[in-house]
């Protein structure tokens, strides 16, 4: 664990008062036979925020979502929504609505009937229903498609109907299961911003489950990274990206270069690490709380590494935070290039640089000897 | 009326369970009980379970029905004959049905539904009438004999009716769709790329079939075989219309004991023994049904 200015500690709720957290997941565990899908998870979600649960398959995120919806019962622990204990409450009595990954539109009903279904369960008058259905369909821009059946709609249209159906009841909580997974790239970006718009307009609390980090980083105001049924870290996207709490999180989000080393010197706001893998000393400008001699891992993001032909120092080899290597592979991605550099210890380091200049100075080519260097604020020191 | 979810569930599951308990399971218990009584001239025509002698109740259990079955060679031979006929018919059904199912599974997507419909259509017409049709074909002045006589292949009509052969034909004919459908359902799921890979590695068609297709289709073979064998053991209509008069199958024996001899205890004992013979195949069938449904989840 590292102490940094803005990161929130992963496992403790933000406030002690249960009523202030809109959704409180308290020590929830779910077992299927011997398999533990969700392992003692505690999480607080604030009213009106967009919270993303991010994790790979098998991480437990979908199970957690289904427990919030009421389709699974926790083996242990409690879920509170707006202060109310949801343990005994079946899904059709919860103030929660879900947008399914497959959209789950009723194939034998028209768009209007699909959206009206939830309102009909509340026994509203026909006029009231028609009015609310029309309103929500306009918000998702599907007002002209009311009479169509789901198989007459495209994928993007179906998704909007699914969203309308889930929002028309103005639930306290909207759960979204991989909302952008079935869409192609262009549509995905467009839909992302639409979702954000709608959420702001209606003020509904969103909980999104996804395995796609880009989706999570774009949509989420706060993220919870899950691994093997546990929460690895909770925080804002920049917290998680810049200050990952564990090696798993650092590796899961974006790409990262990871080096093992021993603490050679440490203080309140710095730590020096002797790194054989890297072949140099690392000087990180933050305290790590680790004892001298302890084994730690240094994580440096590819975009934080500077690549140049000359060393940073005046001719002399710098003592720390720099290392020499040979460029092995270059991948040209248009807006940036990815360089795979083999440093003298043999390890491959990934460096990304934006392609700022056109023509101009001679570009770096393969097999060139280069210097890799980084600022002292870039390395993140991890103990687990 | 608002039911809780668990009360509603109990109702949904409970009604069919209750119905089947009363109308399917309990009757077997009654058959079992009657098999241990003796026939007598009364209504009902069997001895009661508890009889009162000098004011005290005593349990009347007679094993005479079973003793009768085990000692009289007629019954033993009927059981064995039934098993033999059912087994032979099942094998024939498999040998004929497997290639047919295979051909349908390999057919183009457009012809497959047509072929399946052709296989199933006879099933929707009357079973009784289709068996009856074979009488017209097999009897001494029936179609087959007439054609063969006309062509000069034979000079006297063949005795085709009332033979083992006629029963085999009857059973295979009637139960063929039951063999083909599970086999087809299984074969349809096979990946043709596996056979192509085998050919690519040098396997001749027969070898590829034996090594790849046959083992994968085992589940379908078992299901189809059980669907034919188990009911065939107790068949009544086919042996009565087409079969021998000197050697009866056990279904006919049971019916005769009940209707002709009015010997309910012996008929019940016959039934119980058939059940004992078939209990393992029936459980096997239930197991394959369960795993089929689990696999498709």
């Amino acid at each position, binding site marked *: 664990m590292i102490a940094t200015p803005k990161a929130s500690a992963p496992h403790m709720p933000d406030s002690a008062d249960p009523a202030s957290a809109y959704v409180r997941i308290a020590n929830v565990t779910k077992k299927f036979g011997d398999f533990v899908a969700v392992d003692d998870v505690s999480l607080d979600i604030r009213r009106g925020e967009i919270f993303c649960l991010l994790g790979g398959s098998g991480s437990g995120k979908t199970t957690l979502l289904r427990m919030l919806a009421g389709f699974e019962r926790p083996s242990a622990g409690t879920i509170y929504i707006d202060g109310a204990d949801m343990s005994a409450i079946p899904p059709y009595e919860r103030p929660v609505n879900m947008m399914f990954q497959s959209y789950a539109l009723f194939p034998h009903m028209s768009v209007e009937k699909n959206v009206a*279904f939830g309102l009909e369960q509340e026994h509203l008058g026909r006029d009231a229903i028609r009015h609310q259905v029309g309103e929500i369909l306009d918000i998702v821009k599907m007002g002209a498609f009311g009479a169509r059946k789901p198989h007459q709609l495209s994928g993007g249209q179906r998704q909007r109907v699914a969203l309308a159906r889930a929002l028309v009841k103005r639930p306290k909580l909207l759960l979204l299961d991989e909302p952008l997974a079935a869409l192609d790239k262009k549509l995905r970006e467009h839909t992302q911003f639409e979702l954000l718009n709608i959420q702001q307009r209606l003020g509904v609390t969103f909980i999104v489950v996804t395995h796609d980090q880009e989706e999570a980083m774009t949509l989420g105001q706060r993220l919870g990274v899950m691994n093997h049924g546990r929460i690895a870290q909770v925080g804002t996207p920049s917290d998680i990206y810049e200050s990952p709490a564990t090696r798993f999180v650092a590796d899961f989000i974006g790409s990262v270069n990871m080096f093992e080393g021993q603490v050679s010197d440490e203080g309140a706001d710095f730590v020096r690490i002797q790194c054989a893998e890297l072949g140099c000393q690392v000087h990180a400008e933050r305290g790590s709380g680790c004892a001298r001699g302890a084994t730690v891992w240094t994580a440096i993001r590819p975009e934080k590494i500077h690549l140049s032909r000359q060393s940073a120092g005046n001719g002399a080899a710098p003592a720390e935070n720099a290392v020499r290597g040979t460029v092995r592979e270059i991948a040209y991605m248009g807006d940036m290039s990815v360089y795979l550099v083999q440093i003298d210890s043999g390890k491959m380091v990934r460096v990304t640089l934006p392609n700022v200049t056109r023509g101009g100075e001679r570009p770096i080519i393969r097999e060139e000897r280069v210097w890799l260097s980084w600022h002292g604020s870039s390395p993140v020191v991890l103990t687990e | 009326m608002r039911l809780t979810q668990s009360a509603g569930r109990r109702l949904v*599951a409970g009604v069919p369970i209750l119905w089947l308990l009363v109308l399917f399971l309990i009757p077997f218990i009654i058959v079992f009980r009657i098999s241990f009584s003796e026939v007598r001239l009364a209504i009902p025509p069997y001895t009661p379970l508890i009889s009162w002698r000098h004011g005290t109740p005593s349990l009347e259990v007679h094993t005479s029905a079973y003793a009768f079955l085990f000692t009289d060679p007629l019954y033993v031979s009927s059981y064995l004959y039934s098993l033999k006929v059912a087994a032979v018919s099942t094998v024939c059904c498999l040998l004929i*049905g497997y290639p047919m199912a295979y051909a349908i599974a390999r057919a183009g997507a457009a012809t497959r539904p047509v072929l399946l419909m052709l296989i199933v259509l006879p099933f929707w017409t009357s079973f009784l009438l289709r068996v009856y049709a074979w009488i017209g074909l097999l009897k001494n*002045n029936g179609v087959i004999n007439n054609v063969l006589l006309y062509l000069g292949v034979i000079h006297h009509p063949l005795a085709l009716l009332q033979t083992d052969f006629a029963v085999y034909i009857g059973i295979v004919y009637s139960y063929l769709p039951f063999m083909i459908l599970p086999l087809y359902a299984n074969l349809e799921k096979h990946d043709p790329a596996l056979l192509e890979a085998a050919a690519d590695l040098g396997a001749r068609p027969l070898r590829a079939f034996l090594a790849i297709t046959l083992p994968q289709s085992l589940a379908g073979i078992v299901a189809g075989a059980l669907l034919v064998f188990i009911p065939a053991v107790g068949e009544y209509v086919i042996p009565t219309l087409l079969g021998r008069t000197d050697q009866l199958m056990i279904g006919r024996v049971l019916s005769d004991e009940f209707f002709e001899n009015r010997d309910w205890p012996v008929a019940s004992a016959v039934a119980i023994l058939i059940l004992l013979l078939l209990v393992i195949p029936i459980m096997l069938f239930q197991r394959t049904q369960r795993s089929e449904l689990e696999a498709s989840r």
Partner: protein
Amino acid sequence: MRSRALFARTALVLGLVFLYVPILSMIVFSFNNSRLVTVWDAAHSPTLKWYVALVSNEQILRAAWLSIRIALIAASCAVVLGTLAGMALARFGAFRGRLLLAGMTTAPIVMPEVITGLSLLLLFVALQQLIGWPRGVGAVTIALAHITFCMAYVTVVVQSRLTGFDESLEEAAMDLGARPLVVFLRVTLPLILPAIASGWLLAFTLSWDDLVITQFVAGPGSSTLPMVIFSKVRFGVTPDINALATIMVLVVASGIAISTVWMRYRQKRRERDLQLAAAANL
């Protein structure tokens, strides 16, 4: 590869011939004038006289009417019971009595009919001893027996349809506030209706056609069509039965043809809709 396909295809053709020759021979000889059913009386055939005889045969008509009524009742009740059982087995997970229900719905499918028939009759006799009902065997006992073995088939059909069903539709309905009964009536049932319909048809056919079980549980006054046919054919071939068989084959074949055409039409409409939606796009 080729030899395998050729062998299989030959077997298929021969098999289909084997399946249809008896049916075709019945149809052909139903138009035969001769009472010796399989000897073609070229001089006076083809003739419709057996069809006329059939239609004016009181015994057969009465039996057919009874069979139809029993089959209608049995199929309808079997569909209700079978759907309940199918729902329970497909949706309720593990519950006390699941194994029992699963066993009792698969056993009747393979159980030899003589055993089922005997056991049901003995049950009715025992019931009569115990509570005085049923008062003798007849249409009611036949119907009860038919419902019992037909519901097993319906259960299998419904259960396999439900197992392949997209459960997220039912979850979505519950999520939107619908209680389980509403979910079933408004979402599940409309979508499994084709399976239920085919289950009903299956049950109807099985009941209409049943002989052995019916023989056990029928009374002197209630003869179903199969019973009448059986008593006639036990002692030889009769030509009016050929006419009956032909009628049945025609009814079934046209039913299947109509339903195939109907399904093709719906499939074409669906494909057209999908194409339109894709073309319009977003």
